[in-house]
């Protein structure tokens, strides 16, 4: 079964990168351009995994994690943070909010695909 990924990033360049990488890795990808857009697309995308950036307008990655976790049908959906940030404070905040993992950009195609498979196994 093809895994469905909802990827949320405000950078169009990064969305293009994710589209290419995840499609080539065999995932079915839905893109969203900020946290609000991501939450709007959550129901129709029915993702097996959510990938989110941290720094975004309107609603940031922490807000996304909290809002996804607040929905009964997504309480257990894996959420991977994909960001240029690497501070322990931000990682800890994401973990407390309910994130499943943290990936530092620039990401490696194979490592990203492998992380998605691991959290959905």
């Amino acid at each position, binding site marked *: 079964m093809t895994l469905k990924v909802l990827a949320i990033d405000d*950078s169009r360049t990064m969305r*293009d990168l994710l589209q290419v990488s995840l499609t080539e890795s065999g995932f079915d990808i839905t893109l969203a351009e900020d946290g609000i857009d991501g939450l709007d697309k959550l129901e129709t995308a029915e993702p097996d995994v959510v990938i989110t950036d941290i720094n975004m307008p309107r609603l940031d990655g922490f807000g996304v994690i909290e809002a996804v976790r607040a929905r009964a049908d997504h309480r257990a959906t894996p959420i991977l943070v994909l960001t240029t940030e690497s501070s322990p404070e931000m990682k800890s905040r994401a973990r407390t909010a309910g994130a499943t993992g943290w990936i530092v*950009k*620039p990401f490696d195609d194979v490592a990203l695909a492998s992380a998605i498979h691991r959290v959905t196994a």
Partner: protein
Amino acid sequence: MEPGAKVVTVMQGELSVSGDPTVVMSCILGSCVATCLYDPSARVGGMNHILLPGRRGEAVAHNKFGVFAMETLINELMHIGARKPKLVAKIFGGASTFDNGLAIGAANAAFVRDFLETESIPIAAESIGGRQARRVRFFPESGHAKQLLTAEAVPAEELRPQKPARDRRPAVPPGGSGEVELF
């Protein structure tokens, strides 16, 4: 140089951000490109200095190194108060300083232009190409930039990278890139 100015030299592969009106960022560019970004409302700015490993003609979406260097600069600016929709760019460099037939400078400049266009960041000023090296000074708080074309074709700094000083950091975080941590 202005009296009392704090000069921050941004070497290849590094970036720096500041909202301090006494800070002047400086770099010397051959085929490298420096992107200066500033938010005129928040009065903060920053500079990066990149040389891409990719080949000419590679799509922006395939040039992760360059994308990362740009995104890190934008994120660091957001940390000190900039808003991405307000950002304005000034770009410098991309000269054909090595006479080896490889259009490295042009490829670097094309990447930066494509990236800024994709991200809808306007270019307020640019000085790109040519055969001479450039010394660029950028005042991050005001967004003003000055450049001096130098006589030498290849800046010595581009041939002999120096040790980094404070107030600037490598574009790749110490934890390593692509690091995956599952909680």
